């Protein structure tokens, strides 16, 4: 029996997808759940697993071609069934064009790299690879308690790959935490981005290697960025404000905790998680800043939707792209938890491993913009949010304190762009003042 595979809908607002790369050729066998095609939508490359075990009979869409969701893209002959039609003839046509125009080679993680990442977690947990092959994995998933599922999700651990210490080999919450510690500890510090890619074939001008006097074709990602920026800037009336914040105490707190944190987690401790923590606390105090403007439709009046979850997007600039992965329910994480979550997002972003889930659902954005010395910036709001805040460079300044003494302090500007349809200056300045107060009273001691 033949199964027709259609372009999946990767994300609720997504209407089309591009076949970035066929991972299987016609005639190849494919296992159930095995990725057989890589589809790119918005900014994401996602592998699509096969729903059946069988042999690829037809590939209906060329690499680089964009089709609407629901469009048939391949036909798989299920295992055990006879191939009913001669399909060889179509093979050349389907796999012919590796260098299709829209196909953004830069974005395509090599298939081998894809396979590596998930495997990294299990292997550090010792003799689990064996367990993963003998049928244990599925039952491990079935018997996973709510705590195990939550912890595995939070720490990005594959439960099936963890060796269980509970009764009948059940994976316990402690097992997941132990695995998480191993993964974090074993991870090499920020592996260099593996984007060797792009054999500069002929005269192709790319974003990474622009050739003067040429037109760079837009990758999917660049096209989306362009559309989103224009849309946000044109629909949301931007207003802007800035406060100067004394971050001396936060700075010294981080200095104090830095080496211990790196020893415990293998991750670098930047100021970002401290900033995010302060931002989520301020968002909780000013729910209107964690909202979005909802335009009128035929069935519904316009309004301001106040989000119930605080999901903070963190802007990460890459050489050819900008991604904003989202830390979900950031208000429920400690500074340490935020540091780990942000570290994982940054790592994934650099490796091109961010999935649709990682990139969706943001309610507010934080951009740690100061690394290269920027002192003030006017960011564009991430569409569908009320605001975006940038944390600028931290500089030592001579300041006059309340008691008229002079002091050398670490000062930083925080800039806020806000959607004026959602909030006015009254709320926005209250939010900024609150953020300032929180950052100035944070540390220099206490638990991360």
């Amino acid at each position: 029996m033949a199964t027709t595979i259609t372009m999946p809908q990767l994300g609720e607002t997504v209407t089309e997808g591009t076949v970035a790369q066929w991972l299987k050729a016609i005639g190849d066998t494919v296992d159930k759940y095995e990725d057989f095609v890589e589809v790119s939508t918005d900014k994401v490359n996602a592998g699509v697993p096969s729903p059946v075990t069988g042999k690829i009979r037809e590939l209906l869409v060329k690499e680089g071609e964009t089709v609407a969701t629901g469009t048939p893209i391949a036909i798989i002959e299920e295992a055990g069934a006879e191939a009913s039609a001669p399909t060889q003839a179509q093979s050349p046509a389907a796999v012919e064009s590796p260098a299709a125009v829209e196909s953004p080679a830069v974005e395509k993680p090599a298939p081998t790299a894809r396979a590596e990442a998930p495997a990294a977690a299990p292997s550090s947990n010792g003799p689990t690879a064996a367990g993963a092959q003998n049928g244990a994995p599925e039952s491990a998933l079935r018997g996973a308690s709510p705590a195990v599922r939550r912890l595995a999700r939070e720490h990005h651990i594959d439960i099936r790959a963890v060796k269980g210490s509970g009764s009948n080999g059940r994976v316990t919450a402690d097992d997941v935490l132990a695995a998480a510690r191993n993964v974090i500890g074993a991870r090499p510090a920020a592996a260099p981005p593996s984007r060797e890619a792009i054999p500069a074939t002929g005269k192709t001008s790319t974003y990474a290697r622009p050739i003067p006097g040429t037109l760079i074709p837009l990758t999917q990602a660049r096209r989306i960025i362009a559309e989103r920026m224009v849309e946000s800037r044109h629909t949301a009336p931007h207003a802007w404000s800035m406060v100067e914040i004394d971050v001396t105490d936060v700075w010294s707190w981080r200095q104090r905790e830095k080496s211990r944190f790196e020893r415990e987690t293998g991750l670098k401790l930047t100021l970002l998680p401290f900033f995010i923590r302060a931002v989520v606390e301020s968002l909780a105090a000013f729910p209107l800043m964690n909202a979005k403007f909802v335009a009128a439709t035929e069935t519904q009046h316009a309004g301001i939707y106040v989000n119930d979850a605080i999901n903070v997007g963190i802007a990460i600039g890459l050489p050819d792209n900008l991604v904003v992965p989202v830390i979900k329910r950031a208000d429920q994480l400690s500074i340490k938890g935020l540091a780990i979550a942000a570290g994982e997002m940054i790592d994934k972003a650099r490796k091109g491993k961010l999935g649709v889930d990682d990139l969706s659902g943001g309610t507010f954005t934080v951009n740690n913009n100061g690394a290269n010395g920027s002192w003030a910036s006017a960011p564009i709001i991430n569409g569908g949010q009320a605001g975006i805040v940038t944390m600028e460079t931290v500089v030592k300044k001579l300041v006059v304190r309340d008691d008229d003494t002079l002091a050398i302090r670490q000062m930083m500007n925080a800039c806020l762009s806000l959607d004026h349809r959602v909030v006015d200056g009254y709320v926005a300045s209250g939010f900024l003042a609150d953020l300032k107060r929180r950052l100035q009273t944070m540390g220099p001691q206490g638990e991360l």
Partner: protein
Amino acid sequence: MAVVSTQSSVMNNVEAVRATLYEAMKNDDRTLILGEDVGARGNVFLITKDFINEFGPQRVIDTPIAEASIVGIAVGMAMEGLRPIAEIQFADFIYPSYNQIVGEAAKIRYRSNGEYTCPLVIRTPYGGGVRGALSHSVSVEALFYHVPGLKIVAPAFPADVKGLLNASIDDPDPVLFLEHKKTYRLIKGEVPNGHYTIPLGKANLLKEGSQLTVVSYGLYVHWALEAAISLEQEGLSVEVIDLRSIRPMDKAAILESVRKTRKLLIVHEDNKFGGIGAEISAMVAEEALFDLDAPIRRLAAPDVPAMGYAMPLEEEYMSSPGEMADAMREMVKF
């Protein structure tokens, strides 16, 4: 009653009840005690022995065998400014007064829009393990647990008996005060001298542990504690919480502990179906599901109409410290 001028005295639970009632009668003329055999007989456990001689028959009132009247009269007294402490001789006989407790006392404040309150304490011995058979062994807490407006207290230790009984007497609303009769003379402990209260609705963390939370009240607190301590020799770390107040329930204490240990065992002497454990279990499932690393478990009596008189039947009905230890061990190792 000799007043001893040390910091505390060693008492059993029955002495703690007696001492607290005595002080309450001494300190506040509005306090009075009514019930079957509380006067001339001095209560079947001698809790109010000689009270009638000191405080007179107007404040220590022997009533007919008519529980509905005992509570009904006490409700009227409480509404009009007295501080009645009504006694139901055994919890097994509380049923005739159910309407007065549930239909009247618990609703007075609400029904009168706050104009009246009902500062009434209903004390009653309950529980088994004393070969009391059908009519001297029951646990009645679940029958009243469902009722808003009613507080239910079930202390396990003499010091808690005193602090909670004082708080119950002070409380402006009706409190059902459950005294486990097997603990009456079995459990002894230091009781601080002088007047003090323990807030209603506050649990007590008796023993810290990291691998399992055990919640109980009454007699079983002692057995659960014994089991948890015995498991330390096996390297198992079990936390034990004494609820003390059944309603209001100390949600925060239970949740804090469960979030730490990720496992919850509830042990109670009352039968399982629709018991206190059901409510605790539901609350934890609602509030802390994603912290749970094992199914919640309840160790409780079987659903049979009553505790049998024959020793094997009573033992079968009740959970022993050994059975509690077995359940704890299984859960820790789950």
